């Protein structure tokens, strides 16, 4: 039976902003689903609040709603679009929860909309701990002993049954949020308390500890005819205790016999049947006791997941795509295997290679956070590598992380064995390297196993790598056999150089002298049994290469590597768009990337996909392989963030053509002195500044240019170490804190800039072809300058700038573009203070806001940029319709307003004593994702953005206000308005006094740091008790810092709206009014585009 004929339109729910535990893997799955459904002739309606995604590209759906994913908004969309069905299984836990809410509110029934992909009952069975437990027992597997608790007393009573340590898991949260191990009562109270808060059903599951067991995952699919397949098995190298998202994982499972593997498979199939997933996929996690093989089922997710994205990339079996087809009624045997074309999808992929995934963390952004890895996911991204054996895949994956120290090394003394064995007992970022050092220091396989419980087979592989390293180091010369041997175990040229005490370039020259180059093998789902039609390659050092010759003109696009804070899905968006545009323009597109979560690493995106680390060595080898046939036009480096940009010089030096802005021009923008010259020539201003190496020098500069100053170390990413310093004491404090981080020194001085207080910050994304500037959009930040642009909310078009000011920004941008010699994209940040325009920085590359601009104004900047890079002019792009005639500086009357809001991960990071880290915004970027609100005016758009970001403005309740002295004068108006709107105002004594003088009645609340002699609950108590709905707290000097921190941490924990700048609050006032005025209307991007076109034509 082919697809269902009764489904003509489907509403696909996306996953919203990128957060830890729910990243761009859902953009990949959602994009696949939208493509599949449209190919089947189904009208696709999409809701996703995340503008950085590829799926929200208006080309991928018939109606794209960039709106908050709330039941109210979805109901409005249902009323308007009348979909036949809703597909909620491809948008992560967010979509699944939204679907459940729609069901509970009776909305599905009311409008007669069917859920496809997973039924409500199946979702409930998979996620309700008690029901699921029974189901597992029925399937013949075991579960950890457990107790369900709804309050702390239940939890304490459970200790008798379970003992310590005990696992705490809140129900219905994503990515294991709020989970943890309790070793004693104090832990239990803390973790369970937070877990009860985090669970929408106020429920936590307490379990016996299975710490140290082996952990496995299976990815299963099942169709309506009860055909089941296991797409992939994944083994976690880090044993139970570390969230699978934070573990190093390997596919296929490597330490199971067939009997044990088939047992897991039988259990898995029984569970997917009993849960009732009958048109889609699920992920099941198992724990296996290494002593006797006892199997415990940890959990199942009846939807696509991060693991299913990984499994899809690892095997070439596109789970999301197949899931979408199953959801509309196909059976597995009716769907062809994309890769072989001739065999059906009703089979189980078999691998003749090994896949390793390693997580990427961002603890350096949250110095106060406890870096111990637990059952709560903390990583922000991941890299995957394929190799013909485990050691090769592991070493490739580690170097794909692009992080100093992430790879194995053999320099210096490894340190004390006993200390290292103690250190590796605690799982942390980079433990695998500590394991390698412990082995170097003489630890035995058994000792490492005792400390880590990592399976001895995986430990032996590191022993093997160390042995190969010894061979390399001690060999009389680096001969061909030795290099081949090293390469078989994944050693990079850089590692060989380190071991031989020569340069990487020398190693490369020796290797090429032996004509030793990698070959490229195909990911084919079938271990070579059938010919593969899809050019999806990975490198290895063996006999035969499978790259097929082609006579076409080729363009290589470098992706952005593992997601990290500051470099995420936005860059993948640009890379994917470049691939599409260049493919349309007739080029053969070749993508290189190592991030399994992305659309760019979907084998459907580019003509050829190389799943490889983004290091100079690996990229050069891919290029060499491609240069064997056809003509390489060049490499696109300006779309893949710093990762790709960082390779530009090396590629150029190797004689590889770079498309667009030259590496030399990129330098012009990055190097302060050179950039100042460009500004001088264009008669543009930068804030007064200087560079310092010591505290004394910094003090002199600060005194000269005046406080506050913005300090930032040079040559760092994402604003690392950037701060605003208000006085000399704080400057001393700053130097104290960075003292041991080694980020400031003679070769990398500290940049000290005059900080422009009360300035408006402006971002502009533009395109330059050498002749003409085309502005994508001018964005006005809502927070004042000083908050990292990635963390700041902004509005497009600007809401307070005049036409004249916009023109000045445009002219300045054009001058800079010309001065640098941009060919392609340019992002410039300006500050506007007292009507003086200052240039803060310019980046001649794709910025984080390119996709936002595209969604807000319908200008596909990345596509146009890629065509400019291969020589087309902006004029011709306008002429052939690739760009609208009027650029983003045109703001016709009635233009919709789009607000971008950042989404921050503070709730993911607790300090060692279990409190959340501070939620203050600053010049260092810490957000993981973004959302967009679009509506007819700013208040509505802003309110939507807040709702989409998960901190919707309340319609009533209490507002607590406590601000720094400098902010007090600006507080009166917004607070008065809030009170008029019916909100109750609470404040600490100082703030209350000022408000009282303005006739605003305020309830005074005790500060957390006030002595206990003062009566009544403190503000922190009130927040904890849920009695405060909105918090306004701006940071003051260091003396009051602690109090503010307690307030913000409590607010983060309670999931309430928080404003840490007055600018945010003032901007939000109109939005409170909009929220009170009633439900929001919805409009698709396609409709907005038509509106804009009509308005511009007037």
């Amino acid at each position, binding site marked *: 039976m082919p697809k269902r004929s009764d489904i003509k339109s489907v509403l696909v729910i996306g996953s919203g902003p990128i957060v830890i535990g729910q990243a761009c893997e859902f953009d990949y799955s959602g994009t696949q689903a939208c493509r599949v459904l449209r190919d089947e002739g189904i009208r696709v309606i999409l809701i996703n609040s995340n503008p950085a995604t590829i799926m929200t590209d208006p080309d991928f759906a018939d109606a794209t709603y960039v709106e908050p994913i709330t039941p109210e908004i979805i109901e409005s969309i249902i009323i308007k679009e009348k979909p036949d069905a809703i597909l909620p299984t491809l948008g992560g836990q967010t979509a699944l929860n939204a679907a459940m809410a729609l069901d509970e509110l009776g909305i599905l029934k009311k409008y007669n909309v069917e859920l496809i992909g997973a039924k409500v009952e199946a979702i409930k069975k998979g996620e309700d701990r008690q029901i699921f437990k029974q189901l597992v027992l029925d399937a013949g597997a075991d579960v950890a002993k457990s107790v369900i608790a709804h309050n702390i007393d239940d939890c304490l009573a459970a200790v008798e049954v379970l003992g310590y340590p005990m696992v705490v898991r809140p129900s219905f949260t994503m990515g294991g949020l709020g989970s943890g191990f309790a070793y004693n009562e104090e832990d239990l109270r803390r973790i369970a308390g937070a877990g009860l808060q985090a669970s929408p059903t106020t429920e936590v599951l307490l379990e016996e500890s299975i710490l140290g067991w082996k952990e496995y995952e299976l990815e299963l699919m099942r169709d309506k*005819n*009860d*055909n*089941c*397949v*296991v797409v992939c098995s994944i083994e976690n190298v880090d044993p139970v205790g570390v969230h699978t998202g934070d573990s190093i994982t390997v596919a*296929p*499972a*490597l*330490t*199971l*016999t*067939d*009997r*044990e*593997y*088939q047992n897991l*498979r*039988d259990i898995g199939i029984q569970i997917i049947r009993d849960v009732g997933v009958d048109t889609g996929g699920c992920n099941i996690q198992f724990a296996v006791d*290494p*002593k*006797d*093989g006892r199997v415990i089922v940890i959990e199942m997710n009846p939807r696509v997941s991060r693991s299913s994205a990984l499994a899809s990339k690892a095997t070439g079996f596109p789970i999301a795509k197949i899931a979408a087809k199953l959801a509309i009624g196909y*059976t*597995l*045997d009716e769907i062809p295997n994309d890769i072989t074309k*001739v*065999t*059906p999808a*009703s*089979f*189980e*992929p*078999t*691998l*003749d*290679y*090994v896949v390793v995934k390693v997580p990427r963390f961002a603890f350096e952004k949250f110095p106060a956070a406890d870096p111990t890895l637990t059952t709560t996911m903390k990583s922000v991204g991941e890299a995957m590598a394929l190799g*013909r*054996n*485990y050691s090769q895949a592991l070493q490739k994956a580690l170097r794909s992380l692009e992080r100093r120290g992430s790879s194995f090394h053999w320099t210096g003394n490894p340190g004390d064995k006993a200390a290292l064995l103690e250190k590796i007992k605690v799982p942390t970022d980079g433990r695998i390297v500590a394991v390698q050092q412990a082995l170097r220091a003489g630890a035995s*396989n058994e000792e490492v196993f005792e400390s880590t419980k990592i*399976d*001895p*087979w995986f430990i*032996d592989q590191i022993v*093997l790598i160390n042995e190969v390293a010894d061979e390399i180091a001690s060999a009389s010369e680096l001969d061909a056999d030795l290099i081949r041997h090293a390469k078989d175990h994944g050693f990079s040229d850089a590692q060989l150089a380190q071991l031989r005490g020569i340069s990487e370039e020398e190693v490369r020259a020796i290797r090429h002298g032996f004509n030793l180059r990698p070959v490229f*093998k195909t990911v084919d789902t*079938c*271990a*070579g*049994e*059938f*010919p593969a039609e899809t050019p999806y390659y990975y490198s290895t050092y*063996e*006999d*035969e290469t*499978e790259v097929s010759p082609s006579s076409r003109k080729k363009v290589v696009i470098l992706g952005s590597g593992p997601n990290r804070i500051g470099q995420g899905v936005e860059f993948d968006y640009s890379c994917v768009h470049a691939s599409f545009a260049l493919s349309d323009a007739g080029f053969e597109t070749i993508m290189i990337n190592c991030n399994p979560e992305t659309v760019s690493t979907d084998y459907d995106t580019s003509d050829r996909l190389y799943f490889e680390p983004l290091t100079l060595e690996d990229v050069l080898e891919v290029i060499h392989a491609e240069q064997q046939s056809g003509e390489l036009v060049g490499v696109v480096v300006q779309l893949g963030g710093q990762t790709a940009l960082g390779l530009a010089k090396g590629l150029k030096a190797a004689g590889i053509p770079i498309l667009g802005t030259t590496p030399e021009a990129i330098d012009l923008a990055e190097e302060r002195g050179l950039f100042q010259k460009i500004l001088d020539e264009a008669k543009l201003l930068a804030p007064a500044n200087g560079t310092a190496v010591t505290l004394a020098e910094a003090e002199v500069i600060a005194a000269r240019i005046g406080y506050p100053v913005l300090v930032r170390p040079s040559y760092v990413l994402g604003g690392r170490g950037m701060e605003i310093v208000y006085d000399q004491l704080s400057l001393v404090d700053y130097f104290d804190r960075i003292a041991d981080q080694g980020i400031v020194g003679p070769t990398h001085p500290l940049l000290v800039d005059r900080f422009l207080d009360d300035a408006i910050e402006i971002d502009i994304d533009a395109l330059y072809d050498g002749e003409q500037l085309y502005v994508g959009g001018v964005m006005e930040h809502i927070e004042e300058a000083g908050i990292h642009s990635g963390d700041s909310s902004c509005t497009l078009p600007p809401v307070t700038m005049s036409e004249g000011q916009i023109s000045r920004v445009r002219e300045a941008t054009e001058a800079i573009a010309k001065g640098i010699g941009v060919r392609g994209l340019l992002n410039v940040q300006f500050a506007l203070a007292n009507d003086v325009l200052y240039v803060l920085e310019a980046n001649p590359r794709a910025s984080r806001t390119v996709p936002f601009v595209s969604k807000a104004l319908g200008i596909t900047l990345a596509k146009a940029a890629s065509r400019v890079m291969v020589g087309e002019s902006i004029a011709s792009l306008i002429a052939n319709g690739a760009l609208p005639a009027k650029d983003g500086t045109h703001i016709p009357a009635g233009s919709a307003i789009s607000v971008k809001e950042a989404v921050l991960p503070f709730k993911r990071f607790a300090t060692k004593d279990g409190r959340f880290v501070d939620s203050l915004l600053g010049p260092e970027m810490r957000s993981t994702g973004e959302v967009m609100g679009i509506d007819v005016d700013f208040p509505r758009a802003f309110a939507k953005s807040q709702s989409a970001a998960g901190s919707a403005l309340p319609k009533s309740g209490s507002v607590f206000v406590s601000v720094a002295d400098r902010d007090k004068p600006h507080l009166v108006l917004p607070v008065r308005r809030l009170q008029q709107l019916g909100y109750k105002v609470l404040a600490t004594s100082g703030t209350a006094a000022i408000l009282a003088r303005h006739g605003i009645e305020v309830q005074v609340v005790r500060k957390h740091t006030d002595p206990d002699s003062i009566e009544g609950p403190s503000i922190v108590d009130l927040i904890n008790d849920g009695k405060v709905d909105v918090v306004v707290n701006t940071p003051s000097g260091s003396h009051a810092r602690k109090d503010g921190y307690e307030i913000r941490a409590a607010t983060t924990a309670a999931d309430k709206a928080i404003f840490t700048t007055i600018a945010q609050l003032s901007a939000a006032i109109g939005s409170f009014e909009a929220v009170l005025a009633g439900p929001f209307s919805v409009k698709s991007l396609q409709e907005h585009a038509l509106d804009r076109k009509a308005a511009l034509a007037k």
Partner: protein
Amino acid sequence: MTTALLVLEDGRIFRGRGYGKQGSTLGELVFATGMTGYQETLTDPSYAGQIVVQTAPHIGNTGVNKRDEESDKIWVAGYVVRDPSRVVSNFRAESSLDEELDKYEIVGISGIDTRALTRHLRSAGSMRAGIFSGAAAAASDSQLLEMVRAAKHMKGLSLSDQVTTEQAFEEQPTAASIGKVAIVDLGIKRSTIEHMLSRGLTVKVFPAKVTAAEITAYQPDAVFYSNGPGDPEAATGQVAVLREILDQKIPFFGICFGNQLLGRALGFDTYKLPFGHRGINQPVLDRTTGKVEVTAHNHGFAVRTEGLDDITSPNGYGKVKVSHISLNDDCVEGLECQDIPAFSVQYHPEAAAGPHDSSYLFDRLVDLVATNKKAK
């Protein structure tokens, strides 16, 4: 590590490291794509006379144990792997694979581009090959090639006598007894016997050369032909015996080689596949229920029929239906007689290694036994 050579009859040579016993071996070179179950593969008698290439790169990780043996020895003629494990890691392991290969004197080769080799076999077809290591590798390439080209072809080869039991033996069921099955051992796997025992079937395992009279003297409720190596066309004796069984309308079930022999007994032809099916991920359609099973395969030959339904047995056994087909290449994967109580499958419902999707076929055997008893 010593150098070893894998020499293919078409002249292609792979150089790697010696693995297992040093020496030389000849056989038909085939690839198996299972990612688990190397021990079951090695001890599967169907691999007698074959040099097996494992496409999974890491082999030996979980060692070997008694429980997972499919017979009491390793049968492969030679073994080709990429990365043999240096350590054993599994709670059930009793010894390492290296020790096991030494014990059974299996000549192998490791460290070669097994994917290039597999792709070559896929396009050129299974062929004769030899592995040469230690002193045997010292001969010139042309001498080695000559030896390979002098080896026997699998086509036309009868191997049943080499793998079958010497003496007949009976085993009692592990569940309440419901009947007796006479097994003709053409290379049976332990798991097949266990599936029957656990379903209440008493089994008597006969040597391959058993006569129909010896079988009927046992008064079985069903007769079973096992899997096994060799060309079904060469098994004329077993086909003749089977025809006598079918003539007497004794219920029959066959697996793999047994399926090919049923095909031949019914009067159909068998043919050699270009590179065979050897893996545990193979989709098979049950044409009766419309369901897809993921199954274990190990066959280099297959039955050829004209059409799929209502086929008439050329040998006069009435109507026959192709009950199962491979979804990968549409090859016949199962036969079901409509007028006599006989059925068979080309793949391995006993799995080991492989998924358990098809174990229901043993239930069908039980049903057949029960129905037949009632009819008596």
